[in-house]
């Protein structure tokens, strides 16, 4: 069936169909149905208009006004999108029973949502956010716009079963645990954004990676996320690899470095000393790991988050001599023993392997590593509850939804998910978040990156791509931005 | 003087070995003949090869032993020992039939008595009446009370005696001309055994069949048989008319066996015994098989004695046959 695009995913996550009912992982299929206020240009990485044609923020970053696009129709003849729909979507998104990841942050941040007219939405914030439009309200996040009228008419359960959005596709059916099928809207011809080339998009959930690879080879799937290990296999089979660049970054994290928190600081750990952390960074030949484990689909990282502003930060080079010297300087000439806890997630199937590779390098400088596989939920509980102060673990960083929030979540003591803090750093972050000037912000942001690198807040390994195997049927497909898969805009080969 | 009818079954030099021709023999050089209506008793101690002989006659031996079968089993002019499976299925049940020793084990536990009975009846197309009627009649023939109700019973719901009668009924459904009964009463109580033997005699008279009656009990032989063959260690050591054997056994083994059975009528202080125990298949002695246990063994006994007629119709496998009268207990 030439008209059908089959995408094999490793998980559907919750299989729910409204934006606030689950995780952002669902955006793979939700984005065909719902649309966002702003999008990101894949080439320039600039924020471009989406359902909002334009927007402006007040000087203090607390009052945002969005001007909506005209003539955007909800699917199934449910009418034109208006400010009421946007306001409803925001308010529903931050309601107490919302299960979406960013809902708690937004709930705290948003003071009010007003709709002065059909085309205008005004959002007032409690705390300044200078990036709301490209951040939480953008296409890389979860605030899809739903139809208020539709919800009012049919209620939440029915809307869940037959979701209506402004996107080019409509849900045809969900077979639990098996497939989600989207069909093109009848009235797609004049869609404001997308010109889809496939009349049906079928998502299949195939947890086992080797099965996904097999499906690519037999033509049972056109697009499938694959592990780095499978890249040669897929290439050997004459198929293409398309990767989303630098969407995540494998890293080795230290516990007990939340220096501004009593419970989460562990001064006795060897890595409480900066020299040790630096030594552990110098000890690892990152390029070799990238070549061997990531099949070249990654770049050496100087941070644990893919952030454009930090691209200029110089990574630690591979220098075992230096590492040994630093260790000696820190008082560990003979190294020490450490346990690396590791787990797999999606993406992140390579983490245990990376742990083993890192262990091999650390062993070279006398640091004795035991590897202990754990699972992510347990580790996450231990970490957020301050029980991980003597842990070292592999982890993966994701792009920030908003720089401020990202920094606050990662590097201030108020966040449960902080991995490294210091009074100095918290000050820098607070300065950054209160700075309205874009250029100054950029400079401060870069400075923070440099600081994190110099302090060796973690052992930075790589900025990794997200590789997809792609069949002959697939032509142009642009996934140069994270969290925006553009499955509704996959081109057909030959077109 | 009447000419005795031609034998119905003639066994010539029958041996059963464990597969190969040079493997140990379970039975060896058996010669028997059986006339219509006649009952031949086959006695011997456990392991002497009675069942093996019975099974060999019906070609029911397990594959290994069946391969080791040699000699002839002439039934009604045809050699059963050379028959193909189809021919065998033809004569089994209709010409030759068998009652097995263990009534508990010889009925299939998962099918009703009626089912198992009718299977045989169905193949006996010539008999009159419907299948059901014939089944009822068959049970009635073996004196099973309320036969109609019994057809629906399963084997486990019946007593041992009743089961053995059902086995009898099944074996006789097709009015065979020869019945092999392999210790049909050993597992029954004496009072039940008595009645079953009665029944069997009755049926035999009615159907005019010949019978090979295998047992280890001389009392049963005395009651049931016209002639008797005594087996020891895979061979027939003595054969003859029942009265002659009981009164004047010529083989020392026969004699010693008869003597060592206690009876109700007299009180003995000690029983005469045979020393030792019967040999196992693997350890059968050369020569006369009985000589290691024989009170009269001599050096000549180390070579095998032939079967020789001692009196009309009575022959024995012994170099030094007895000639005295035995005083019955």
């Amino acid at each position, binding site marked *: 069936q030439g008209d059908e695009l089959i995408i094999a995913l490793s998980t559907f996550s919750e299989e729910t169909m409204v934006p606030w009912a689950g995780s952002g992982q669902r955006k793979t299929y939700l984005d065909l149905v719902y649309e966002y206020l702003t999008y990101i240009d894949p080439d320039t990485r600039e924020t471009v208009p989406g359902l909002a044609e334009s927007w402006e923020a007040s000087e203090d970053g607390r009052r945002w006004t969005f001007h909506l696009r005209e003539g955007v129709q909800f699917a199934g003849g449910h009418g034109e999108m208006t400010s009421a729909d946007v306001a409803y979507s925001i308010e529903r998104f931050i309601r107490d029973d919302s299960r979406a990841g960013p809902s708690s942050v937004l709930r705290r941040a948003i003071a009010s949502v007003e709709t002065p007219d059909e085309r205008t939405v005004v959002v007032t914030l409690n705390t300044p956010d200078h990036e709301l439009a490209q951040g939480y309200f953008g296409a890389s996040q979860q605030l899809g716009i739903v139809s208020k009228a539709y919800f009012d008419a049919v209620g939440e359960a029915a809307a869940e079963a037959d979701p209506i959005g402004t996107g080019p596709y409509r849900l045809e059916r969900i077979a639990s645990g098996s497939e989600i099928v989207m069909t093109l809207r009848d009235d797609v011809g004049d869609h404001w954004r997308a010109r889809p080339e496939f009349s049906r998009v079928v998502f299949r959930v195939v947890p086992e990676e*080797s099965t996904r690879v097999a499906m690519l080879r037999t033509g049972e799937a056109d697009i499938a996320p694959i592990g780095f290990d499978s890249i040669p296999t897929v290439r050997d089979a004459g198929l293409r690899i398309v990767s989303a660049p630098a969407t995540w970054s494998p890293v080795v994290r230290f516990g007990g470095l939340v220096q501004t928190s009593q419970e989460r600081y562990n001064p006795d750990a060897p890595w409480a000393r900066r020299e040790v952390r630096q030594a552990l960074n110098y000890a690892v030949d990152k390029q070799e790991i990238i070549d061997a484990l990531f099949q070249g689909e990654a770049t050496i990282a100087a941070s644990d988050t893919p952030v454009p502003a930090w691209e200029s930060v110089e990574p630690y080079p591979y220098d075992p001599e230096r590492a040994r010297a630093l260790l000696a300087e820190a008082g560990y000439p003979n190294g020490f023993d450490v346990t690396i806890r590791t787990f797999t997630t999606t993406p992140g199937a390579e983490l245990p392997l990376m742990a083993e590779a890192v262990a091999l390098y650390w062993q070279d400088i006398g640091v004795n590593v035991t590897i202990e596989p754990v699972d992510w*939920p347990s580790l996450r509980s231990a970490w957020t509850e301050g029980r991980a102060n003597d842990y070292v673990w592999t982890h993966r960083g994701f792009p920030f939804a908003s720089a401020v929030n990202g920094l606050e979540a990662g590097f201030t003591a108020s966040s449960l998910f902080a991995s490294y803090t210091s009074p100095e750093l918290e000050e820098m972050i607070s300065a950054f978040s209160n700075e309205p000037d874009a250029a100054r912000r950029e400079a401060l942001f870069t400075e923070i990156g440099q600081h994190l690198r110099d302090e060796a807040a973690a052992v930075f390994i790589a900025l990794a791509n997200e590789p997809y195997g792609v069949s002959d049927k697939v032509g142009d497909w642009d996934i140069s931005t994270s969290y925006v898969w553009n499955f509704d805009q996959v081109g057909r080969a030959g077109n | 003087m009447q000419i005795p009818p031609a034998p119905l079954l003639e066994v010539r030099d029958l041996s059963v070995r464990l597969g190969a021709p040079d493997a140990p023999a379970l039975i060896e050089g058996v010669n028997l003949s059986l006339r219509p209506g006649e009952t031949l008793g086959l006695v011997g101690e456990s392991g002497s090869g009675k069942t093996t002989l019975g099974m060999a006659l019906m070609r029911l031996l397990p594959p290994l032993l069946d391969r080791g079968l040699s000699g002839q089993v002439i039934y009604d002019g045809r050699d059963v020992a050379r028959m193909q499976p189809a021919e065998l299925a033809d004569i089994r049940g209709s010409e030759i039939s068998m009652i097995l020793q263990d009534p508990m084990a010889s009925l299939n536990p998962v099918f009703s008595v009626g089912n198992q009975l009718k299977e045989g009846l169905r193949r006996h197309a010539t008999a009159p009446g419907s299948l059901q009627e014939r089944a009822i009649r068959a049970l009635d023939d073996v004196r099973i009370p309320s036969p109609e109700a019994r057809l629906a019973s399963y084997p486990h719901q019946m007593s041992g005696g009743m089961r053995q009668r059902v086995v009898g009924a099944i074996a006789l459904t097709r009015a065979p001309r020869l019945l092999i009964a392999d210790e049909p009463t050993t597992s029954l109580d004496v009072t039940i055994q008595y009645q079953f033997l009665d029944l069997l005699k009755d049926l035999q008279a009615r159907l005019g069949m010949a019978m090979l009656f295998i047992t280890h009990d001389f009392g049963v032989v005395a009651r049931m048989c016209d002639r008797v063959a005594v087996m020891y260690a895979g061979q027939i050591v003595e054969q003859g008319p029942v009265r002659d054997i009981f009164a004047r056994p010529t083989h020392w083994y026969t004699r010693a066996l008869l003597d060592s059975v206690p009876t109700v009528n007299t009180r003995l202080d000690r029983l005469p015994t045979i020393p030792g125990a019967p040999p196992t298949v693997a350890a059968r002695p050369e020569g006369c098989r009985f000589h290691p246990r024989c009170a009269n063994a001599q050096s000549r006994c180390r070579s095998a004695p032939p079967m020789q007629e001692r009196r009309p119709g009575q022959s024995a496998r012994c170099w030094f046959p007895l000639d005295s009268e035995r005083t019955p207990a």
Partner: protein
Amino acid sequence: MVQKILILRGARPKGPMPGMALWRQTGWPVRLALILLAVFMVAAIFGPWITPHDPMQGSLRARLVPPVWQEGGSWAHVFGTDRLGRDILSRLIAGARISLTVCVLAIAIAGTIGTAVGTIAGYFGGWTDRILMRLVDLALSFPVILLALLLGAIRGPSFANIIIVISLVLWSQYARMSRGETIKIRNEDYVDLARTSGLSDLRILWRHILPNIAPALIVIATLQVGIVIVLEASLSFLGVGVPPPAPSWGSMVADGRSYITSAWWLCMIPGIAILLTVMSVNLVGDALADRINPALRGRNL
């Protein structure tokens, strides 16, 4: 029948050296299996002294080297190297040790518990029996794989977990079987005779029951070795087995499965090792069962 023939051939079911007797009386498949098992045992016991390389040490530079008979292979790595450049042969040898340890511990624990429960239930009967056997039923109805996953989730994959989980799978079989055998033996006259000699229940259990069910237990244990290896491999596949980097055969297969076309040896060689070992164990187990207690044959799952 079989017994009859054995007796005829002069072979007693219980010889002085069962291993040797087994060797002499079996065909080539079982002999081959015995040889393979011997290799396995040697690898497991002397592993640390005979591995050509450190099974945990590798070099990313020498990763995915094919086995020696393939183009690009070398004698340095007979079976090639894995994703981290660790020598597969060395890891196989080290894995044998792990498999053996898991087998021995799990079977010992399961066997002890199961046999204790089974013999007690069988010997005393009545309520003891009913309660204990219900417990066995419950254990049987528990989807053990889910328990394994839960345990793995609670405590992370660990050696102890696997042993607990596998023991939980296995013990009920010992319980059922030893109960059955105990009931059989309890009804043997020699148990009554022991009582008329004034022996206590405990002594009867120890002196008469246990030695007599031991052969059947040994047969089960042998046949279970295969189950343990496969189960351990399956658990490792699901990520709750032997924790990496320890080279369990199961996790070697699991880790190598993405390379089935590009570096087939990663998953095929350990897979074949599992297959051959388990087949050998099962062959030998069957042969043992035939000798010791033909009734057990085919009844073991």
